[in-house]
């Protein structure tokens, strides 16, 4: 495969931006749904970096890891949505700042 049109660096920058976007969402959104979405963004940014790296080094590992990330993301979403339901049921809200049971 020759002639990768886009340089690896650019892809990585995009992935970093995506990751920061996700992280920011994680940090600054209060709604659980949005937090989950932010997580997905972060996972996918990592996936993007893997794919790009795999392509750059002509190795299949990047793609394999991306598949794994997809699976993990799916599992995570199912657990996460389950948690969302529970939180909704217990706290009657999806605002994470009001679910402070960890503070004994």
């Amino acid at each position, binding site marked *: 495969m020759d002639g990768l049109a886009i340089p690896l660096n650019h892809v990585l920058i995009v992935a970093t931006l995506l990751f920061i976007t996700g992280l920011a969402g994680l*940090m600054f959104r209060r709604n659980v749904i949005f*937090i989950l979405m932010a997580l997905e963004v972060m996972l996918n940014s990592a996936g993007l970096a893997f794919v790009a790296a795999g392509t750059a080094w002509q190795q299949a590992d990047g793609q394999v890891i991306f598949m794994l990330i997809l699976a993990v993301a799916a599992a995570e979403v199912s657990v996460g949505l389950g948690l969302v339901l529970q939180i909704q049921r217990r706290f009657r809200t999806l605002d*994470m700042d009001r679910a402070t049971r960890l503070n*004994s």
Partner: protein
Amino acid sequence: MLNYVWLIPLLPFISSVLLILTAGRLPRKLIAVFGAGSVGLAALLVFAIGLQFMQTQTPYSVQLWTWMDIGDFTPGFSFYIDQLSIVMMSIITGVGFLIHLYSTEFMQHDSDYSRYFAYMNMFVAAMLILVMADNLLLLYLGWEGVGVCSYLLVGFWYKDAANGAASRKAFIVTRIGDTAMALGLFLLFTELRTLQIQPMLEAANNTWAIGDIMPAIAALLLLGGALGKSAQLPLHTWLPDAMAGPTPVSALIHAATMVTAGVYLIARTHGLFLLAPDVLMLVAIIGLATLLIAAFAALNQTDIKRILAYSTISQIGYMFLALGVGAWSASIFHLMTHAFFKALLFLAAGAVIHCLHHQHNIFKMGGLRGKLPIVFWSFLIGSAALAALPFTSGFFSKDQILLSAFEMHGPATSFASNIGLNFNLGPWLWAGGLLGALLTAIYSFRLVFIVFFGESHTEPDKQPGWRMATPLALLCVMSLIGGWFALPLANVFPPSAEHHVSYLIEGISIAIPLIGVLLAWLIYYKKINSFSFFTDSSNGQALRRFWKSGWAIDRLYNSVLVSPYIAIANAMRGEWLDKIYHGVVSICVGSHQLLSNSQSGKIRWYLISMVFGLIVLVSILGWAN
């Protein structure tokens, strides 16, 4: 017989243990038999042993068992019998038996009959151990033992809190002296490597020279013990209060035996005191000061027993005076005669109190001469001996003391000349003693005239029975003729010089007590009081109150020692040290709260701090590389 000497303290001890174990379940008759009988048996044994001892005259010592054996510290449970111990043992068991006999009637209606005799017998046993001990540690055992028995007996009627306070005072004040004495024991053992009295005195003589500092300190510390036990200045304040106990107890413990233990101790260790002439001089001065202060106090009391208590302090002052001037046998002689007449006086006073429904105030008595004849004659004879009227026992002993004091040439001590005491102290001591003798005669006959003459205020409701009368009669005889015996103490003490005083001095010594009696007769019988212009003035009243309170020494100690101790203890009660530990705890709790605040439970907060931390970590790593 001498082999059975250990039986003497054992008999009363066994009786005491028996009475404690049966806890009052024996019939009263049996209790009396055990209580008085055991002491009587011991007295017989002492008599027999004394007779045998007089033939051999050599000190006899016996070791029952080794008490402790650690390195060269080997005090034994061992007795040392010489003339001095025999004299003391005779007084303790003889007078002791009479007082026990008297008690069987005096205490007849007390519900704690058995406990009383248990304590009394325990006392006799401890006192015997004290005078028979061959080492200072065993002596200390007896010494503390008699202290505890005194405590128990003073507080015998425990339901009255005042008695408890008096008994505690007695124990704690003497304990102060005892602690000094214990330190003396430590010093003597550390320096001389033995506590056995005779070898120790020998070692002291070989190690130290006259006037050295070490024997002076040791003698001072022992003197501290003697002052406490014998109620001398400045530790005398417990004795007047100790009169809270039953009267026979006062007779036995606080007149005849225990309070003279200090005199015995100094006489026993006179070899040590001879090495410390300064201390010896101090003994004489303390004796003189005590006898005068106590005599003035006795003159102004109204409680019959307190008068006798102050008189006891005063008479022991004479013994200390004798010790201080080196008249050892005169001191022991006075100890013996004092035991007779003071026991007699206390027992007679007890009879008065017994027959007058526990009346103690002499001004509520009066006119008892015809109503209680036995008691009157006992009291009269006892007072005569106390006042040292010619040919009574007290006369001989007190006369010896005064003459010895007059003849003392001194002070020859380096310390005394260093502080400028170069004059001859002897005549001053003699004059002070004479003043004391005058006061003694006045206060003792004041008592006689007020209680037994004049109008009657309280009617006696009973007469003393035979168990009270017999001891009184026997003690009367002893008080009269007790001075005619020469005590066989020549082997124990260094020989003292013959008295070479002029007839004038001798005459004055005899005349002074007679003058005192005359004065008492004038003032208290004839009521001719030529001092009334002074005694009734406000200053005079204040002075009398001051004397009556025992020169306000109790008040002084209360404000200087007792109250501060209680105040400090109460101030510390809440354990202030815990404040420090609680401070540590508060620091922990505070920092816990600080840190737990960061644990808000807010997921986003955790996340933000994680990210922040990660950034910091990564930048540190990056910076480091």
